[in-house]
């Protein structure tokens, strides 16, 4: 047993004792929550199939993603897990997407077939958004080859509308994607990241020893432009890649996040690129974007190197009203953590924040800002795992399977890695890729969904014991897109401010739930909540009790829910 695992074991055992018999052991309060692996208990049985047969084809190392979504509109978060498949000519098993319906009792039912999603494809990522504003979540699956758009019928089933929507024929090595309304016309548009110009036919031979084939690094391939598809509102999309200015064939994009870095109310995009400069696409409010990554200081590492950007998360971790950024990178490159600096620029604070040090030997993929302990400060969760099974032979301190990390926000721009304290099962080393959060049990705290490459998916239930309270908001747009993606919610308590944006995408190949959750500590009320809708409308509500959820419908009064 490794020392780290041993220590995690001790932490887990100690936490277990404190729960079983709180009065018996006078243990310290701990971190106030535990992440428990409830995958099997919840009835989730998923195995990712990378299709690896020994051909060492590049996409095998990268998949795949996951999503929390409420596909049936019952207010309970369901789960979608993306899968790849065997390569042509090496067919051994059938592997498909998996859709798990929330049974509202902590368990899930596999409804893949019934929902019409038992489809074999070389899936990578997922983006969930109600692009036709019918009140039901539609799903885009990014693939190696043809991406697929599944429209939600509202009757518990999906239909493949790839061709009908006009997305058919665009084939690439797509990775992360997100829905957002870049022209603020109330319709969700689609942004898709593409990695490199790869196909099985044009696979390049790379080798570490000169004899045996190994996985290539992205330098071996040409880049591929990201795509932007504008929603025409008639169920079809127009390719706006070229006209919007996001076309860049040198990009090797893996992650994308929605943000409004210049606070002008127009959605901007941050794209994480692998071995190429990251892009910060500023929305010019005229249907065009301009890359200002270099000026903003997010394109390169502080020493001027284009890092291997994988996943990306955006969140106001300083409670300053301005969103910071986290970008996961290759091992030896650290997680890039950026705080909003002067003007519209960012300052890299990985090392001083305490995030850089522990992430030096990890290869990060999925990542998300979430207030895991409901203390009012956004924490950072990161899924780690290497792409090279033999990495231990080359770099002794780096493993193939790596523990996920949970950086607890200590305030003052400082974080503390506490995955081991949060749960031995959570901190167990795995080849992590996708990561998403959502409150599947509607107890107010955020649970974590994590996928692995060529391995199982994990569901970690957050068991809050600190007594910290949450307040959740379910937003519905009317003039704005129905999902209210891009809406900014700010809560105020005395002089304290917290901010969340309703967003799709982010992390890596994954999507978290759309409702926004605020931790408010021991407060039983919040003074004020202000919502800036994508349409430009602003609403304000006062004196809301915490410990429950609220329905916020654009230009309507707030509706309190029973519980979350």
């Amino acid at each position, binding site marked *: 047993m490794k020392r780290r695992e041993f220590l995690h074991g001790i932490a887990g055992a100690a936490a277990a004792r404190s729960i079983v018999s709180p009065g018996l052991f006078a243990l310290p309060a701990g971190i106030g929550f535990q992440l428990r692996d409830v995958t099997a208990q919840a009835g989730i049985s998923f195995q990712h199939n990378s299709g690896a047969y020994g051909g060492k084809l590049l996409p095998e190392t990268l998949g795949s993603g996951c999503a929390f979504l409420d596909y049936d509109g019952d207010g309970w978060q369901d789960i979608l897990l993306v899968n790849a498949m065997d390569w042509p000519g090496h067919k051994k098993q059938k592997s498909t997407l998996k859709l798990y319906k929330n049974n509202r009792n902590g368990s899930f039912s596999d409804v893949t077939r019934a929902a019409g999603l038992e489809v074999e494809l070389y899936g990578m990522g997922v983006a969930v958004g109600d692009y036709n504003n019918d009140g039901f979540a539609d799903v885009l699956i990014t693939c190696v080859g043809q991406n697929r758009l599944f429209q939600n019928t509202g009757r518990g089933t999906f239909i493949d509308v790839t061709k009908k929507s006009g997305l058919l024929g*665009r084939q690439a090595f797509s990775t992360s994607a997100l829905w957002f309304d870049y022209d603020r016309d109330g319709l969700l548009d689609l942004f898709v990241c593409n990695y490199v*110009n790869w196909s099985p036919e044009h696979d390049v031979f790379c080798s570490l020893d000169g004899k045996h084939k190994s996985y290539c690094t992205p330098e071996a391939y*040409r880049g591929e*432009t990201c795509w932007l598809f504008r929603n025409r509102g008639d169920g079809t999309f127009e*390719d706006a*890649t*070229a*006209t919007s*200015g*996001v*076309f*860049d*064939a*040198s990009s090797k994009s893996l992650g994308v996040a929605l943000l409004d870095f210049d606070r002008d109310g127009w959605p901007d995009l941050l794209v994480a690129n692998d071995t190429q400069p990251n892009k910060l696409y500023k929305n010019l409010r005229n249907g*065009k*974007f*301009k*890359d200002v990554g*270099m000026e903003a200081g997010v394109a390169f590492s502080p020493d001027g190197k284009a890092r291997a950007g994988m996943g990306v998360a955006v969140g106001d971790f300083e409670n300053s009203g301005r969103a910071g950024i986290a970008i996961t990178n290759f091992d030896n490159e650290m997680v890039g953590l950026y705080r909003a600096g002067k003007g519209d620029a960012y300052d890299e604070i990985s090392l001083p924040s305490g995030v850089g040090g522990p992430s030096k030997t990890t290869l990060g993929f999925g990542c998300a800002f979430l207030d895991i302990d409901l203390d009012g400060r956004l924490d950072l969760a990161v899924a780690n795992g290497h792409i090279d099974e033999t990495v231990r032979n080359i770099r002794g301190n780096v493993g193939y399977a790596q523990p996920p990390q949970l950086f607890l926000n200590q305030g003052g721009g400082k974080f503390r890695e506490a995955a081991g304290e949060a749960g031995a099962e959570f901190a167990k080393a795995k080849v992590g890729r996708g990561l998403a959060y959502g409150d599947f049990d509607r107890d107010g705290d955020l649970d974590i969904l994590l996928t692995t490459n060529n391995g199982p998916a994990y569901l970690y239930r957050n068991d809050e014991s600190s007594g910290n309270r949450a307040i959740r908001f379910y937003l519905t747009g009317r003039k704005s897109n129905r999902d209210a993606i891009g809406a900014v919610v700010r809560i105020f308590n005395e002089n304290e401010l917290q901010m969340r944006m309703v967003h799709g995408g982010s992390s890596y190949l994954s999507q978290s739930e759309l409702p926004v959750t605020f931790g408010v500590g021991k407060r039983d009320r919040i003074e004020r909540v202000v919502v800036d809708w994508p349409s430009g409308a602003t609403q304000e509500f006062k004196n809301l009790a915490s410990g429950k959820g609220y329905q916020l419908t654009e230009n309507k009064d707030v509706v309190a829910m029973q519980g979350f």
Partner: protein
Amino acid sequence: MPERQKPRRSPTAGLLAGLVLTLVAVLLFAYYMNGQLRGLRELQSNLVDRNRKDSLQLLRAQNDLNSLALGMRDMLDAREPYPLTAWTAQFERIREDLDAAVKAEDSFAPMQRTAEQRTYLSQSLAQFWAAMDRMFALAGAGKEKEAREQIQVSLQARQAALSTAVARLLIQNNEAEEQATAEITRIYDRVQRQLYLFLGAALLVIVLTSLYLIQANKKIFAQMEELSSQRSELAQKLISTQESTLRHLSRELHDEFGQILTAIGSLLGRAGKQVPENSTLREDLKEVQEITQSTLSKVRGLSQALHPVLLEEAGLEATLDWYIPTVERQNGITMHYEKSGTAFPVETAAGVHLYRVVQESLNNVSRHAQTNEAWIRLTYAAHELILEIEDHGKGLRPERGQHGIGMVAMRERAELIGGTLVYEKPDEGGTRVRLRVAREKVQAHGG
């Protein structure tokens, strides 16, 4: 009268001159070093740093030119389903960065670059952008084929020329940097040589100054020795004179005044017998006779104090046997007088000095030691005579440079008889004066 000795020349002036010389040399060297360092700094900031910054901008430009080349390759590949205008934003980004790089490069351009060289890059780039704008204009007008021809015919060639120009400038910078490195090495070598030279000169000055100091010190010590010897001689003469004067006075008092007073006493005695008894005159004469007798005793005491005749008549040991109880009686100090060894006669001249040492030491005990006990030891050893006077009082050791005249005199007396005198501190505290003198120096012969 002996010729008055000329005052010797003080070494201070020489030393001051040496110091001034050294300071001037240090200042001159510091000035020289400062000049060299300034030159180095200028060379570094004007050439090396400038070159480095310039090269960085050239590398940035080279990178942008490579991106342009890749972009043009993709445009010609027609791999993408987009029109050529799709590349506009990508090329605009590169254009912004490349223009900024060339502008920055111009501000850092090394001095030796010609005006023609300085303008070539910006002019070529302007021509490239003009051609690119034409190409995008053609593409925008739907003339994709003509636009692609423009890339092949004009843009790619211009990009290649620009790339070559940038590479050439990078090579030039590299060569300039090598020259600067060589110049820096030359400066370092020169400074090193000068440093060795300066160190050698400084060493020489130090050696010469040291030699001069040694010589001057030798002279000073010789002078001090001579002075000391003169002083000792003078002191000894003083002591001899004092002793002979005291001896003379003592004899005069004893022999002359003693006899006169004895005669007066006898005469008064006889005269008294001739006067009738119970007469006033007889009483008066008797009183005068008693006064005369008392005066005679005092004169004899004074004579003894000035120079104990006993020394000459009975020797040192007997004198001490008389003197020590006398002092004990007079000063109330308990004296522990010890004699050991086989006594031998001490020559009178030496005995006087030994007696004086005892006298002075006991005088010090009574005046300064604040004690009422003293030990006197006279030891007749086989080859020497040892005289010790010890007390356990507060100690007599005087402060540095404040030796009492009495103590100086004791040392001189010891020297006069060829002995050594030391002051010691007994374990019990106080002072021990120890005089050791070789037997042959003090033993009386034939007596």
